[in-house]
């Protein structure tokens, strides 16, 4: 190896940490956030930015359309194509590819709903809002929000950590066709749950299936930080295969956020798995390729997932609300409170 080669190698080795750092997920998100902010007019910037401790903006999310619960921030519809693309890039960098796909399918579903409702101006992809609480930073806490009808993503970023709780994913229609392809934004949430339910033996089912109706989310919007007494079948009463199915089901929510944050979250969920409960209410069957009409809940020490089909619209299998929480760490409070 001659001297110049050695120099090049040495330079590369020295640059490695810098490159690695530049490519860390948080660094990537911050870079994309600053790039998005740079595309904005001063007035727009003022509207998209909130103080990190703005608790009103923090909780300004809902399953309901914007007309009913007025969001703040900037709507996609008022952005230029360049701004919109920067916002989309920012969102994509904060999510996993599968998570981003799910979110896009929910947003496009609202566009389908708009079409189905004679172009109802209450709905559509233009009515999703982006907002930033605090200053995008690789060290100090800040928050990225994206949501509208049937969607609320609250991503608190603290250093390398990314907290997605509380977040709401929902879908109406829960099944639609786009470019000849069938799309089910929350299809896996239903199919994996039925697979788990069907794997249970009769004794396990007797525990898991509640004998009462649960008509709606118990810990929906506005119920931050609350922990209800769990019920159903405990994961300790499941075999390894069933536990793996449960974890795989949970990953439909915990895996929405970008991979390294999702991995940390999954480790936390696994550590509490023995104290995690699976409860089911309603019909135990569903048509192949369609959602069911049953409610279910997964609850662990740091986890609440609820899946609640809605009767509104006539077909509960086509209108689904879900909530994803960590009652111990909603909005990353565990990381940000001193």
């Amino acid at each position, binding site marked *: 190896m001659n001297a110049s080669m050695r120099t090049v190698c040495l330079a590369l080795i020295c640059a490695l940490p810098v490159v690695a750092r530049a490519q860390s997920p948080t660094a990537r998100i911050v870079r994309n956030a600053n790039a998005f902010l740079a595309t904005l007019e001063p007035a727009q910037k003022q509207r998209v930015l909130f103080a990190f401790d703005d608790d009103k903006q923090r909780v300004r999310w809902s399953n309901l359309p914007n*007309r009913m619960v007025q969001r703040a921030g900037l709507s996609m519809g008022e952005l230029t194509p360049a701004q919109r693309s920067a916002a989309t890039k920012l969102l994509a960098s904060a999510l996993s590819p599968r998570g981003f796909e799910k979110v896009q399918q929910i947003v496009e579903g609202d566009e389908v709903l708009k079409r189905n409702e004679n172009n109802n101006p*209450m709905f559509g992809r233009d009515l999703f809002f982006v907002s930033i609480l605090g200053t995008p930073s690789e060290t100090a806490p800040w928050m990225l929000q994206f949501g509208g009808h049937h969607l609320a993503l609250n991503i608190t970023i603290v250093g390398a950590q990314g907290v997605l709780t509380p977040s709401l994913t929902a879908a*109406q229609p829960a099944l639609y066709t786009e470019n000849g392809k069938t799309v089910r934004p929350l299809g896996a949430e239903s199919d994996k749950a039925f697979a788990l339910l069907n794997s249970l033996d009769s004794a396990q089912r007797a525990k898991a299936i509640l004998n*009462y109706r649960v008509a709606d989310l*118990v810990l929906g919007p506005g119920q931050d930080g609350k922990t*209800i*007494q769990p019920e159903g079948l405990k994961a300790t009463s499941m075999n390894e295969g069933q536990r793996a199915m449960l974890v795989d089901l949970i990953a439909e929510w915990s895996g929405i956020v970008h991979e390294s944050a999702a991995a940390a979250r999954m480790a936390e969920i696994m550590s509490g798995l023995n104290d995690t409960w699976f409860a089911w209410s309603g019909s135990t069957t569903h048509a192949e390729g369609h959602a069911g009409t049953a409610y279910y809940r997964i609850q662990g020490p740091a986890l609440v997932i609820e899946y609640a089909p809605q009767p509104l*619209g006539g077909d509960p299998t086509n209108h689904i609300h879900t909530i994803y929480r960590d009652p111990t760490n909603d909005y990353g409070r565990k990381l940000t409170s001193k």
Partner: protein
Amino acid sequence: MRRSLTVTVALLLSFATRADAHQLDEYVQASKIAVARDLVRVELRLTPGVKVLSRVLAVIDTNGDGILSPVEQRTYAERVRRDLSLAVDGRLLSLRLVTLGFPDMADMKEGLGEIRMDFEAAVPVGGVDRTLTFENQHLRDVAVYLANALVPQDSAIRIGAQRRSYEQASFTFEYSQTDSSRPLARATGASPASEAAGYFGMVRLGMHHIAEGTDHLLFLLVLLLPAPLAAVAGRWGRYAGARQGAARLLRIVTSFTIGHSLTLAAAASGVVRAPSGIVEVLIALSILVSAVHAMRPIFPGREALVAAGFGLVHGCAFATTIAGYGIDPWHTVLTVLGFNVGIELMQVAILVATVPWLLSLARTTAYAPLRVCGAGAGAVAALGWIGERAFGMANPIGPLVDAAASHGPLLIAALAATALLAEWRVRFVPRGSPFVTRR
């Protein structure tokens, strides 16, 4: 007025036909029940969907003017309260409205209105294992009920099995309240472990009661001040000797214990009921009497008898702390026993920490000023309490006493230092020196 409601309803109906994108045709009534120590809180969130709003508004807006006046809001809350029922161990409890919040009418009209009502109910003292039943009958025809128990903030309270009717109108759950400073278990279904936990809880409560009960402590200490001395011709005289001093101390403490144990047991089992106002005044008086006696002997040789008599008074005060804890005679006995053992343990601890120094000092000339100062302080504190408790006067002394008591270890250390200094003088400073000498 009528017309405005009609217009409102028509408007709502026209709106409802468009806004069919979420749950509108039901009145969601979500209850979250928080069990705390001796208290149940019911958080009720009522969300009328747009399609049932007219049905709900007809109940709230009784004069139909389209405005929900404060009176209408309160009347509605009372209506809801009557439609709820809460029972613990089969006993109906009365719910009290603690917060009431109505959304804007504009929000209500869009089916966003969340009416917030929080109720509280006091739970009578009972056993460890309890059953709570909550029922909601409000507007059943349009209601969707959700009823859940919140995980208690208090780790000593645990929720057990839950049962609900299919529509969740009726919700029953079991819970246990094991606790370190609470009553003993009810005999039925209480495990030996929880019985033991309850017993030791009472022991701790007894210790706590003495450690925090400055007046009881002060009485005891002031009463012990002259114990090592012999009364001679109406004055406190020489050191009576270690053996005699210790024996007298023991007799006084034992008599006090017998006295307060008797009334504690009697009052706790409901045999006697002393009015606590008078008891508190008598306790302050007992300190004053002891303080006077510590300055000049007024009942020499009969300290044990007086200690027993005042013990009876102090026992009545102890009893108020544990009144109602006993479920049945057996548990009353256990409760009294546990509490009393706690009192004794703390008394012994305080005696062990102070008596050796008092006995040591009593042999020196330093003891007379110490005794008079101690008794004087006790008398001043007692007078403050008497004024406060008997005549409702402001008591500037009380906070000072509490502040001093909170530095108990420091006071004991000062006492020990004084005793050691006096001892050193006695041993190493020659007779006739102007310092402390052996009496």
